[in-house]
């Protein structure tokens, strides 16, 4: 028998004296209200960025990869850096919804919906880079294994690049299904209280005719649990497979067995940072501070300091192995191309170290974990650092080959490469603004489920109930 009520000592997850109806009101309010000026400004900026991105991609598709400053030596530059960066960001959502569900972390309910949305949008952004990096993007379907008229010439199932195709598309599909199946009951809530005809119709379509029947809830619970169970290894597999893109090669700096755990930790690290950047703003703008509390922010900051330290250990392990292996190519990559501040790309290595390893240590202090300004600033810094990490891994490993004659000149991106990256920001934030306006940003049904066990106004009753349950438990065990 599980204990139904949480200990009184724990911080409440929902502040204020809320009833079920208040929860509905609070979360649905931004959907029913007119968007604020701030929303319009943000939305238009995002759409402008997106348009610039579309134009940059148009240039690349029309004139070819030569629009980017990639060269024969640095064949992977900003594009793959951005791909790995966005995929990493797309890890927090499923981690929060799946792994924390299995670990019975009650605080996930406040942030899971927005984090899952963020995951889906980030994976959408990530997918653009390898697709357009193919050059002839109209041939992109060649990566799919289907009986074709070219032999049939199949794809190489032994290649990590193909594993990536499967991993990313599966991850996107499963995250989308998980997210949407959670949204159905909340759409029904919006539908049933809609005042305008259009809203009633549209949310009626989106809610799939959900009624809230007990049998349906029972199946919904089973579905969520199994999807969480499936997503947990999935989320770990995705970034593991992304790291295989590098780790299965023979390039010094990539050929490393610690890549899978190191990449997964880094992905969680950057994903949580992105969730923080967004949630610190969203909770204020939409007045959801009772649901996304300082406790939530502190919990995520703890994850950030943990995963930041894990990647820190990975960086140091790599440096150690660069020396210990006594392989001069490894040594050159790690000790000259990276750790030497005065080598061409040394700045990116030390930028990464400063942002990812040193600065998150500030979160050992409780005061800092619970400071909104510090949290926001750090979350941006971490994402800059994680971008540097991918840049360091990709560019510093390949710009000086085994063969000095093919060493590259200094690589800096072209405006269209930068434009593509900015365009994905546009895509991400356009989607996020639409989500924040038209979707319940917090899982209403899940908050209602935890309300009476973790809500502030229900905490007083808990001591007695806890005692009663402990007695029952002892009684059951005694017989």
């Amino acid at each position, binding site marked *: 028998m599980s204990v139904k009520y949480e200990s009184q000592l724990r911080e409440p997850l929902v502040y204020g004296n809320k009833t079920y109806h208040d929860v509905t009101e609070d979360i649905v309010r931004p959907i029913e209200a007119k968007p604020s000026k701030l929303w319009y400004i943000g939305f238009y900026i995002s759409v402008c960025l997106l348009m610039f991105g579309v134009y940059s991609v148009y240039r690349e598709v029309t004139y070819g990869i030569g629009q980017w400053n990639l060269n024969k030596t640095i064949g992977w530059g900003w594009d793959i850096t951005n791909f790995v960066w966005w995929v990493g960001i797309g890890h927090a959502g499923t981690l929060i919804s799946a792994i924390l569900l299995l670990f019975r972390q009650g605080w996930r309910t406040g942030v899971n919906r927005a984090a899952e949305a963020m995951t889906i949008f980030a994976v959408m952004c990530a997918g653009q880079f390898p697709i357009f990096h193919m050059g002839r993007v109209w041939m992109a379907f060649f990566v799919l294994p289907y009986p074709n008229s070219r032999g049939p010439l199949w794809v190489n199932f032994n290649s990590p690049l193909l594993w990536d195709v499967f991993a990313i598309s599966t991850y996107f599909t499963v995250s989308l299904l998980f997210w949407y199946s959670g949204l159905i009951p909340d759409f029904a809530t919006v539908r049933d209280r809609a005042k305008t005809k259009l809203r009633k119709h549209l949310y009626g379509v989106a809610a799939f005719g959900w009624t809230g029947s007990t049998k349906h809830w029972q199946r919904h619970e089973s579905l969520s649990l199994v999807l969480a169970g499936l997503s947990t290894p999935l989320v770990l597999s995705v970034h593991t497979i992304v790291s295989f893109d590098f780790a299965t090669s023979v390039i010094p700096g990539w050929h490393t067995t610690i890549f899978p755990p190191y990449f997964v930790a880094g992905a969680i690290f950057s994903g949580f940072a992105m969730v923080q950047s967004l949630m610190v703003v969203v909770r204020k703008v939409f007045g959801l501070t009772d649901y996304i509390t300082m406790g939530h922010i502190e919990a995520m900051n703890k994850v950030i300091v943990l995963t930041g330290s894990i990647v820190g250990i990975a960086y140091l392990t790599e440096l150690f192995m660069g020396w210990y292996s006594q392989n001069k190519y490894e040594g050159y990559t790690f000790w000259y191309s990276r750790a030497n501040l005065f080598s061409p790309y040394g700045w990116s290595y030390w930028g990464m170290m400063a942002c990812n390893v040193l600065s998150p240590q500030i979160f050992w202090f409780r005061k800092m974990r619970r400071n909104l300004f510090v949290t926001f600033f750090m979350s941006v810094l971490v994402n800059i650092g994680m971008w540097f990490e991918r840049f360091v891994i990709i560019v510093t490993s390949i710009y000086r080959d085994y063969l000095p004659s093919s060493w590259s000149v200094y690589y800096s991106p072209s405006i269209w490469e930068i434009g593509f990256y900015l365009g994905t920001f546009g895509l991400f934030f356009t989607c996020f603004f639409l989500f924040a306006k038209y979707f319940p940003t917090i899982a209403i*049904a899940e908050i209602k489920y935890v309300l009476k066990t973790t809500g502030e106004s229900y905490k007083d009753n808990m001591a007695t109930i806890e005692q009663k349950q402990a007695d029952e438990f002892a009684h059951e065990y005694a017989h």
Partner: protein
Amino acid sequence: MAKKKFVVGCFDNEDVLFPAVKKVRTTGYKIKDVFTPFAVHGLDHALGMRETSLHTAGFIYGITGTTTALSCISWIFTKDWPLDIGGKPHFALPAWIPIMFELTVLFAAVGMVLTFCYLCQLAPFVKKHHFHLRATDDLFVMVIECTENTNTEDLKAFLTNNGAIETDVQMAEEGWWIGRYDKDEVLFEGATA
């Protein structure tokens, strides 16, 4: 599709709902369903529902995915077009594990969601009768099917005595139909309650 008569009792607290469910069932009334705004744990057992076997279906879909991946890849790489990749064996099982895993997850997830939607009859443009609009907000709505012998007034009083804050008698269509939520369709001529 015929309409049936139901007595509806609304509760605003799950702590009142559970004893009421028990009382109603022991008295011999047949509860058609309880509509709740969130998953109330234990309510399915209180209503005497059996466990769902959705997860078993998920397992079957999952192993279908694994076998699909394994059989397709091994056929392609050993029979249909054996590629020589650095003289490595054609049957390279370890290299196929990532794709086998991904397809397992993909098949299980897609299959389960489709099965879930099929079992619960959820789809875009599907419409159902809603006994109370606040069932998705803050009310727990118990729906009891009437037989010829049911005295609706007695039953309503019985529900009120057991903590229902609102009771009602409704004629309702049980199944689903294609419809819009912003329009009240009359499904058949003269079929209004």
